[in-house]
């Protein structure tokens, strides 16, 4: 978003129009494609993990080739080192990606479908329905997100889908609010009014006229939302409140964050941290670029 603005030396007059020939070329840029590349890589690794030549993530390879007590540093045997129980970090990270990514994507999907629909309808229909749903969303939004997540997860068994559902429920409110404001904006536009006056049924209008338009800004934000969901899962895991079986990035980081592990073998924490960070950053960056590209600014908050 760099304008051709000169504030150098501070605050002298902006150049007259004659000199300002900075047209904003709207491209997605190299960074965007790099980010997409990384995301694709991680997703593929996670998807095809069972078929890749990886060590068993839960198996203990103690004393392999006479190395003595774990944890082992990065080496030919363990590309990214092992943890304190001699489990391979590379495969644990990749398998951890499976859960983290699934939770992230499905939470966002849930949020978008449910929240998006409710928001879309609210923005169009207004009236009592809108007032009720808006109030509910406001209540949901008044809870600090993490506490709500903890509350819900504590009341159910902590499996993959319940966690995903929890985060999904959490995202309904913000997504719903966004969908609602987008819907409000578009519902005022002439093409919707035209459809209305031609006697089109409300459901038809919402589906055919509103939805495609609202979908554009929302899809730009889907990537950003996924990043948030993945981080949220990580946070839960870090508190010990994520899925009980299997590993996720958050759990791996938690394991590695014990003082003793950090002192002896920092890679146990830093490998999953790096993976998480890169993924989140890629999602954020790509989502940001998409948002600029579609110029979604007017609809935020």
């Amino acid at each position, binding site marked *: 978003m760099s304008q051709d603005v*000169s504030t150098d*030396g501070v605050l*002298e*007059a902006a150049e*007259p129009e*004659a*000199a300002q*020939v*900075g047209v904003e070329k709207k491209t997605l840029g190299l960074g965007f494609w790099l980010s997409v590349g990384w995301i694709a890589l991680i997703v593929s690794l996670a998807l095809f993990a069972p078929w890749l030549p990886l060590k068993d993530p839960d198996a203990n390879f103690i004393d392999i080739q006479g190395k003595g007590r774990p944890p082992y540093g990065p080496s030919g045997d363990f590309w990214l080192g092992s943890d304190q129980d001699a489990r391979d970090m590379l495969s644990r990270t990749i398998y951890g990606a499976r859960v983290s990514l699934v939770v992230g994507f499905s939470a966002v999907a849930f949020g978008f479908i449910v929240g998006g629909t409710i928001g879309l309808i609210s923005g169009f229909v207004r009236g009592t329905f809108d007032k009720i749903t808006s109030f509910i969303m406001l209540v949901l939004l008044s809870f600090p997100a993490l506490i709500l997540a903890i509350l819900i997860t504590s009341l159910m068994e902590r499996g993959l889908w319940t966690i995903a559902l929890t985060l999904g429920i959490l995202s309904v409110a913000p997504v719903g609010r966004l969908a609602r404001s987008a819907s409000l904006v578009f519902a005022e536009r002439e093409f919707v009014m035209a459809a209305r006056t031609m006697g089109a049924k409300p459901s038809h209008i919402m589906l055919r006229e509103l939805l495609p338009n609202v979908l554009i800004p929302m899809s730009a934000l889907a990537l950003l939302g996924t990043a948030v969901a993945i981080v949220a899962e990580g946070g839960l895991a870090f508190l010990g409140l994520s899925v009980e079986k299997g590993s996720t990035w958050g759990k791996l980081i938690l394991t590695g964050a014990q003082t003793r592990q950090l002192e002896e073998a920092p890679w146990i924490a830093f490998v999953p941290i790096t993976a998480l960070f890169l993924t989140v950053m890629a999602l954020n960056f790509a989502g940001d670029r998409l948002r600029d590209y579609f110029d979604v600014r007017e609809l935020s908050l």
Partner: protein
Amino acid sequence: MNGSRVLLDVSDYSVGFRTESGLAQVVDKVSFTLERGKTLGIVGESGSGKSVLNRSFMGLISSNRQIEEGSALFDGEQLVGRDRQDFWGKRIGMIFQDPMTSLNPVMRIGRQIFEPLKQHLNMDKAQATGRAIELLTQVGIPEPERRLKQYPHELSGGMRQRVMIAIALAGEPELLIADEPTTALDVTVQKYILDLLADLQTDIGMAIVLITHDLGVARGRTDDIMVMYGGRVMELAPSEELFSSMSHPYTEALFSAIPRVDQPKHTRLTPIAGAPPDPVDPPPGCRFSPRCVYAQDDCLTSLPQVDPAAEHQFACFYPVNTEQGRDARGLNAERGHTATGLKIQSVAVH
């Protein structure tokens, strides 16, 4: 001209900007002088370069794409090529077009006036308060003590402009540059502001550069008028002489475009057809030629120059009140168009 009375001596002053499409010569070899206590009016449309001239002259444009050339002497000191920060507020004051946006909306009036007083005149709070009240009174603002505590949005447009003038005067400058000071104001208020400026000039003895697009505003309030177009000086003369015997077709066109009380009712105003030239790619000859009803072939190819020694300068081969001019006009009327292809409909003789 008496050397020591000359405050401003500008010669061949030019300002260009490097752009992606080429060099935009926004101000092209402008020359003029201004004596102490006198007023120079600079008149031109938007795009004539008058604003850039003024801001660049003040040193307010600091883009590394700017190229400033020529000479601009202020009281003998060369301004071009140096940092002009020490002049701001102290020796040269400036007031801008829109008083609503030129005053800091979240800062009280008092503080905005105190700033230059404290900075340039080293006054303490008490002295500054006293002086601020004096200044506000001088610009004709009632209840000055109350105003000090108010915010800009609590004042009317005319009062805000007066406040701006008060602020600009606070540092006791020798030169005041007024960039379209009345454009954003109602017509009735305009007169007061212009009268105010004239009175202040008499009281304080400062020189004024009055920039406007409205020839009528400049009339009667300036000692000299400089008409600019396309970054160049078209005509420069003492005011009354400019109006009584204008020489440049552009000046004549400007004059015809303003409604005047002394014209008979329902007189058709003639707007100037066409648009200002592109500073990156201007017409090869006289900049005004595409829109000039006098234009001949040589206007397309050669650039008319002013005679810097003359008291009444103009840059034209076919000046208005000369035989060549009348002949040129007649020729164009006969053939129905000028050398640049501009169609001539009727011969409007004023």
